[in-house]
């Protein structure tokens, strides 16, 4: 199944698609208002981009600086080459504690590594504590957005889910009352939690500390009540200095949801006496992406989701149509690095309009990379035969003035003469699935131009000496 087929499923419910489209655009508009209120916003984007570029260019050194500083803080640092190793390290820490009850705050990395099913298989209870993540965990669904994991659901869906799992009244769909029910339910889980797992927004090489940004406070509550904190991060989360956070905290929430900053910007640096803190640093394909000059800039991503909110394709196809941990434009340039065959259709799920690049707070050239992935996929023969051959054919036609002229004449005639059922047969003409072709003109511009009276010859211009 490719992106378009999965999007078809999402599009079956037209009202819901429209709601999804408009809701995400509303978030994009909130982003704009927050951004325009900061006169130096464009300078901040450039600084963020430059800091990330610099960090990637010294990443091995910064990773070692971070490790040394974290260890000096009494933090255990682990390294995982891939998802399997990441999961095994975490299970080992949990089992050494004799723990069975885990509370987790948002981490796209643990989604990427499929940590939850792995832990559950080993008899561990894992509770996602971000409200959106808890909702989809009850429903056994993946997140459809990296910042708004349950954006594909309506409040009635959540009401139904909570009725089943939390015993709220049937038909209850008031967000205030549903959130209160989740608060009460999750307070119990927080208090019982033995080990807390969190993601990492920023890891500071200078201090060895990690920063976690949330609005709900679930990371702070989980981590500070549990005996052990495990923070999971990809190697690209490093920033050099504490003061660099001035730049990133000003960009992140404004770009993500249009807030001036997240409610909590929490710095976890040392464990409290008698407790443990672990940091798991994960590669899982990232060093490979670092080695691709055309695509390494994707590692600068700070996971704000702005590219999703603005993308005309994402808004109308839903996050699940990407079938990858990170959906949307940024996911479409990260996913082929992980599995080119499986995700071959994602770089084509774009109009290349460039809106993603325009809103990216760290100036990743997302739409250029989408275009470049298409070339790589073409070279690797990972595009469907119909697309491959029609592209080759059109390449030939467009490369020759004569063939193009003849082709145009033929097409204009054929469109006028052939029956509609044939020219619009969706089996051969995907364009016509939801569109009408324009009426074919009798004449092309070139044919018209050739028949116009020739303009009078211009008098020779005097030569200007060099």
């Amino acid at each position, binding site marked *: 199944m490719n992106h378009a087929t999965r999007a078809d499923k999402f599009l079956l419910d037209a009202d819901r698609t429209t709601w999804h489209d408009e*809701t995400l655009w*509303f*978030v994009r508009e909130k982003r704009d208002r927050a951004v325009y209120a900061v006169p130096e916003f464009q300078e901040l984007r450039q600084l963020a981009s*430059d800091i990330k*570029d*610099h960090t990637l*260019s*010294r*990443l*091995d050194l910064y*990773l*070692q600086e971070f490790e040394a500083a974290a260890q000096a803080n009494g933090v*255990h640092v682990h*390294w995982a*080459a891939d998802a399997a*190793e990441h999961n095994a390290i975490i299970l080992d820490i949990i089992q050494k504690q004799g723990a069975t009850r885990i509370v987790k705050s948002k981490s796209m990395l643990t989604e990427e590594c499929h940590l939850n099913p792995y832990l559950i298989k080993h008899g561990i209870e894992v509770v996602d*504590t*971000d*409200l959106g993540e808890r*909702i989809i965990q009850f429903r056994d669904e993946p997140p459809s957005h990296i910042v708004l994991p349950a*954006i594909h*659901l309506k409040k009635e869906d*959540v009401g139904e889910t909570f009725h089943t799992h939390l015993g709220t009244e049937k038909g209850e769909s008031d*967000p*205030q009352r549903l*959130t209160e029910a989740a*608060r009460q339910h*999750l307070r119990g889980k*927080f208090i019982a939690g033995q080990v807390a797992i969190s993601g990492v927004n920023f890891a500071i090489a200078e*201090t060895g500390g990690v920063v976690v940004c949330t*609005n*709900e*406070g*679930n990371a702070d*509550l989980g981590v*500070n*009540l549990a005996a052990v904190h495990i923070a999971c991060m990809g190697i690209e989360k490093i920033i050099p200095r*504490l*003061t660099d*956070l*001035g*730049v990133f*905290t000003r960009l992140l929430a404004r770009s993500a949801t249009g807030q001036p*900053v*997240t*409610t*909590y*910007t929490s*710095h*976890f640096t*040392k*464990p*409290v*006496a008698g407790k443990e803190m672990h940091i798991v640093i994960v*590669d899982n394909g990232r*060093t*490979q992406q670092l*080695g691709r*000059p055309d695509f*390494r800039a994707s590692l600068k991503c700070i996971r704000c989701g702005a590219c999703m909110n603005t993308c005309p394709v994402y808004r109308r196809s839903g996050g699940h149509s990407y079938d990858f941990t990170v959906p949307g434009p940024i996911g479409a340039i990260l996913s082929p690095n992980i599995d080119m065959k499986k995700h071959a259709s994602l770089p084509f799920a774009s109009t290349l309009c460039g809106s993603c690049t325009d809103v990216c707070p760290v100036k990743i050239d997302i739409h250029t990379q989408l275009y470049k992935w298409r070339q790589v996929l073409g070279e690797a023969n990972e595009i469907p035969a119909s697309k491959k051959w029609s592209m080759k054919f059109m390449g030939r036609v467009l490369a020759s003035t004569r063939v193009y002229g003849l082709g145009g004449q033929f097409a204009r005639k054929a469109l006028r003469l052939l029956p509609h059922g044939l020219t619009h047969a969706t089996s051969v003409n995907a364009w016509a699935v939801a569109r009408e072709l324009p009426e074919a003109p009798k004449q092309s511009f070139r044919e018209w131009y050739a028949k116009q009276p020739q303009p009078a010859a211009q008098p020779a211009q005097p030569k200007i000496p060099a």
Partner: protein
Amino acid sequence: MSTASRDRILAATKANKPAELPLPTVPDFGGEATAERFAAVLAGIGGTVVRMNGLGELVSTLQQLFPEARTTASPLFAASVPINAQTPTGILAAIDLTVLQGEIGVAENGAVWLPEANMMNRALPTITQHLALVLDHRRIVATMHQAYAQLPNTGGYGKFVAGPSKTADIEQSLVIGAHGARSLVVVLY
């Protein structure tokens, strides 16, 4: 833990990284460091600013704001529940109102820096039902750049708190009071 993975990751990073690029200097950018701006922005994100003339008015100010708070925790006045780093979770979970000293206020986003040293217990500022942060109005800066420039370090744990805990995970409807404090008041003096 596998040192083999550590070595492999570091070697691959070294081999694959681009040629070195410079680390930029971040300018200050100036901005409006006023209590008025701070209060307006905090109100916009669901928090409240209350002013008093000095710390002497703290108890009466709090009594007016939270007449129903039965269990209180604070190092700033004679609160009803004594708290330290070892206080059991059950006691923390029953606190109605916590009052702590904030260190730096950020006018552009309504955030207040709260270091571990001022928290009594790391879990307290989020597990409490309501949170009040007391802040000297002279400690308000314009931006996050200026706030970080003033931090000597981030200690073992510390956080910027900007308003009450909130979520919009159900249909983008804003709900105040997700998991952390249901309300946040900054008491400026």
